[in-house]
């Protein structure tokens, strides 16, 4: 991961440099992951893509996490009609497959990373809000929430200072998983040509690039694929670790 975080120091070649002498070269000492159909070094591209894919993981989930958590906390605390209304919004969103919704929005906005973030943000916050709302609903019935009211704290203070720290753990864990999913989604959209645009190095784009050469040059698609798997696994483990840590504090 450290190696991948600073591709400019470690990557042996410029990810965009083409080498027409070495088209579709299999893995070798000079190109450990081989080269693609434009003679670009696959290893260098996989490493450079890490930065973009991390950006996707972070930016595609940060807004949903923050906004969803805030909305969820308020909805869970207020309850009643607000909650019922929120429930209908959730229903409306989860009726459609996530990817279909995102693709629809991206097609309207036009392809590109920024629009992809917007599309994922518009849909994704609902899931965080639902998780946090459910948790806050449980927490607000506990004595310490009553105690907060008995001490004369404002509603905002009770929600964000007292209830949220107790309710946020599942959302944080989901966030980590979601980062892994966001990379997959980013890759899927990249593959479909709706996310990062070629020639930028992005794992999904790379896999898409390689799909025509699967039979002859498997390395173009397989190495970025492995990178996705490893990163996704990393985030999942990170999420588990965080959950363990947050639970330990109680």
């Amino acid at each position: 991961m450290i190696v991948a975080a600073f591709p400019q120091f470690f990557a042996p070649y410029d990810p965009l440099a083409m080498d027409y002498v070495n088209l579709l070269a299999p893995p070798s000492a000079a190109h450990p992951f081989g080269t693609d159909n434009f003679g670009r070094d696959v290893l260098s591209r996989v490493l450079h893509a890490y930065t973009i894919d991390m950006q996707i993981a972070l930016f595609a989930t940060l807004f949903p996490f923050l906004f969803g958590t805030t909305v969820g906390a308020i909805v869970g605390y207020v309850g009643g009609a607000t909650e019922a209304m929120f429930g209908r919004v959730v229903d409306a969103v989860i009726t459609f497959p996530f990817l279909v919704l995102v693709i629809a929005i991206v097609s309207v906005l036009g392809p590109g990373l920024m629009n992809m973030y917007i599309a994922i943000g518009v849909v994704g916050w609902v899931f965080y809000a639902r998780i946090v709302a459910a948790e806050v609903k449980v927490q607000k019935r506990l004595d310490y929430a009553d105690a907060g009211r008995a001490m004369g704290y404002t509603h905002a203070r009770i929600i964000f200072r007292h209830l949220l720290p107790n309710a946020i753990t599942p959302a944080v864990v989901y966030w980590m998983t979601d980062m892994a999913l966001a990379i997959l989604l980013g890759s899927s959209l990249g593959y479909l040509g709706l996310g990062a645009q070629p020639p930028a190095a992005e794992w999904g784009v790379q896999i898409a690039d390689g799909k025509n050469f699967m039979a002859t040059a498997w390395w173009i698609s397989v190495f970025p694929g492995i990178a996705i798997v490893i990163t996704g696994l990393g985030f999942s483990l990170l999420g588990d670790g965080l959950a363990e840590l947050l639970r330990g504090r109680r």
Partner: protein
Amino acid sequence: MSEPILRVRGLTTTFGDGALHAVRDVSFDVMPGEVLGLVGESGSGKSVTLRSLLRLLPAGGRVAGSVCWHGRDVLAMNEAELRGVRGGEISMIFQEPMTALNPVLPIRVQIEENLRAHTKLDGRGRRARARELMDLVGIPDAARRLDEFPHQFSGGMRQRAMIAIALASDPKLLLADEPTTALDVTIQDQILKLILELRDELAMSVVFVTHDLGVVSATCDRMAVMYAGRIVEEGAVADVFACPRHAYTHGLLGSVPQAGAERSMLLSIEGTPPGLARIPEGCAFNPRCDFATDICRRTRPRLAEMSPGHHAACHNAGAVAAAGSPVRRAMRDG
């Protein structure tokens, strides 16, 4: 006699669109520096009464009547005024210190939250005050313990921390909802002593909800006995213990085991308190009462003065008084 600091009149708390009366027409005064005990079985409405004073009710609860605090009616206050009173002027501690403390915030933060809400102290002032409060409630090694979490505290220490939070902004009235029920007997005693000491030190009054008559005799100046949402007897603790005027109080006192006395039958009150939806006609206690007569089944007795400062709502107060107190002097004296 000085003016009462809290004057409760006709307090009535209902749930579910007025269908269930948890508290009916309850009136009492709290004098400065006084400890008032609210006593009764589970479901008698004592905790709901206490919470109603600060309008701390679960959804669907409605409070009527008046709760007069320093000339202002708590029940008529707007949200902002109410927040100022809650925790600042009238504070509350709970039965279960484990759940009433926030599990993920260090004690320091929880004390400072109260100070932030009710005082103008800056960060440094709050820190210093939190330290002081820990000393005040007798938590040793305050500097270190302030940064610990509630789960690192023992039950007694948690209740002390809860008290420190409740008293942070110098309230003049402390509402205590069975604060010792969840604790070991020895710890109970320490906490009760602490509350009494703090009462003297901070010149505040305390309303103490409990079902434990031992606690009442050890801590309270006056007591009000509740049954089925109403106060059935009220007076100075010594008077009530010496000469109960309501059959229910008589039964309650008879059901307390007494150490040091020769062995005698432990009396119990047969049956259970009525459900809120099915309160019997007449005196609510009549189906369980040994003294019940015809009138008890027809009309509800009114709270009447039996002797100065001693009220009871019992048709047969004379007969109950004649039966004498089931409590031996030994217990009354301590």
